[in-house]
């Protein structure tokens, strides 16, 4: 899953570097605040551990072997933020010292495996383990599923990154300039190996290690549980920020969502075959229905189709619309919370 240089376009690499840098900054700040001076030796040694574990051959059913990343174990024992740092350091050393994985794609590799992998693994583990006892079998199963889901989430993200390359980056003759396969080929090609061997290897290692720690070093698991007890809304804001950055992906979808046609779409003769094909050969009306025509003029949106008229770039327009929407929702939520708080105080 280590993407080498040359598979992703410069703009994809830059976007994913930006996303990874934001995560590293947040992780470093958070970890320094929680464990202070211990940060450097703990992350260093754990990164070295992840590096060594990635070299283990894990025997799988059927006589074959596979390799794991150790993302679930790192997220469970260290917590997601420290896991982001440890795995990112491991991936950086693999790229810079051993030439495994690219330098321009380092941001993408870290974002896929370290950032997304750690948070998915941690979320799934916490969801399944819930408040069960640290030494319960439920935790072992939770670790296995967390490892399996995390590695597949990372692989899915990598395959989407590959799959969007030919859509976005091709020359005038239609030759893809980077990874050549579209999403319909890239996703199954990548996921088959990960849903079977790689996912299984990760599940086996995660479950095996958590089971071992439950018997031999349960203190490590207790320590991580108490460290992760505190929750805050800042995580949610980070997720929202990442989703906002990813909103331009919506431009990739061809055509209009089914049933969301405007009066202009229905009047357009070029759009009719598309609507017909999407509606199981049901012909659209020859002219715009009177009701739609009348109602469509009542309200004109300031940002029609998520594309403000004063912005030329569709991607910037999409991101700006996302920021505006999130900002508006946040302001409304805060305002309503303030109103309810005032009412409660006046009642009290």
């Amino acid at each position, binding site marked *: 899953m280590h993407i*080498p*240089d*040359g*598979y992703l*376009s*410069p703009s994809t*690499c830059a976007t994913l570097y930006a996303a990874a840098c934001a995560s590293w900054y947040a992780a*470093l700040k958070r970890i*320094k605040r929680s464990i*202070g*001076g*211990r*940060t*450097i*030796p*703990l*992350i*260093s*040694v*754990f990164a*070295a*551990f992840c590096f*060594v*574990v990635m*070299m*283990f*051959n894990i*025997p799988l059913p059927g*006589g074959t*072997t596979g390799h794991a990343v*150790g993302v679930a*174990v790192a997220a469970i*024992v260290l917590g997601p933020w420290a896991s982001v740092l440890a795995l990112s350091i491991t991936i*950086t*050393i693999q*790229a*810079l*010292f*051993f*030439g495994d994985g*690219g*330098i*321009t794609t380092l941001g993408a590799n870290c974002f896929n495996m370290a950032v997304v992998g750690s948070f998915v693994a941690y979320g799934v583990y916490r969801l399944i383990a819930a408040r069960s006892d640290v030494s319960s079998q439920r935790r072992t199963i939770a670790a296995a599923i967390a490892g399996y889901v995390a590695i597949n989430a990372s692989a899915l993200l990598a395959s989407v990154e590959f799959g969007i390359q*030919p859509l976005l980056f091709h020359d005038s*003759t*239609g*030759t*893809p*300039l*980077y990874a*050549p*396969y579209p999403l319909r080929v890239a996703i199954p090609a990548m996921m088959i190996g990960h849903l079977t061997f790689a996912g299984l290897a990760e599940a*086996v*290692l995660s479950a*095996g*290690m958590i089971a*071992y*720690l439950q018997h031999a*070093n349960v203190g*490590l698991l207790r320590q991580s549980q108490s460290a992760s007890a505190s929750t805050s809304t800042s995580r949610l804001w980070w997720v929202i920020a990442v989703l906002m950055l990813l909103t331009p992906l919506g431009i990739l979808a061809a055509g209009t969502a089914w049933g969301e046609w405007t009066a202009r779409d229905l009047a357009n003769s070029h759009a009719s075959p598309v609507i017909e094909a999407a509606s199981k050969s049901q012909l659209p009306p020859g002219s715009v229905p009177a009701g739609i025509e009348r109602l469509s003029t009542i309200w004109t949106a300031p940002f029609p189709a998520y594309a403000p008229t004063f912005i030329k770039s569709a991607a910037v327009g999409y991101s700006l619309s996302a920021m505006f929407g999130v900002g508006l929702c946040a302001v409304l939520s805060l305002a309503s919370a303030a109103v309810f708080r005032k009412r409660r105080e006046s009642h009290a």
Partner: protein
Amino acid sequence: MSRTNFIERTLNRFARAMAKALVSERTAAKPGLLQALDPRVRLIGLLVLVISVILCRRLEAIAALWLLAVVIAIASRVSMATLALRVWLLVFVFTGLIAFPAIFLTPGDAILSFANLSASAQGLRTAALLILRVETAATLTTILVLCTPWTHILKSLRNLGVPVEVIAILAMTHRYIFLLVDTASQMFEARQSRAIGRVNTSEQRNLTSRTAGVLLGKSIELSHEVYAAMVSRGFRGEVRLLTDFRMRFRDYCALAIFFCAAGFAVWMGR
């Protein structure tokens, strides 16, 4: 298949990683073109060339950069056999495997047809672009890794603005990788030497998980000991690195040449 094959394979991987590190150390110590330059120039120059490879859209421009990479490698006394085995062959096999179906799957002007398959000109070009781009970028990265000691790469990264804490973590991780590889090797060797009779797959999995678990415990313990050792030597949460690099006239010239070559390639390959 031998019953302890998976242990041997793991041990082989450890040995290969160690061997790779040794080759890098030996090449970095040889006198050569890159070795004579300031490490920051090496890092920035080769990174700029890697970026230019990604920016180029024409095969001829990428091929010219590959040729430049080979010339730099020869002048820096990098073994061609190492490059051929470690980079060119490996990349050709793996990326070739990925790129080959694109010749037939990419829609475009058919240039060759047999059975139900037809190869397109666009498919051939995209496959060639991918292979050549990965080969060239991997060659440049490997030259950097082989000609620059790890400590110099770290100091150069610090000069480029990477936070000092990250540099300290990278340096310590690199050191402990070798310690933990050695510890894991000893654990696997000890287990293999005690193995009598057939070990089934389930037991093999348990053995791997237990080894990883023990290694995890040792790692955490080691981090506490390292921290205690750092504190006892006066560590108070701040890291200072000694940087003794000095840019000379030839370094500035080399940096300018790297930038010119990368700029020219991007212009040619636009």
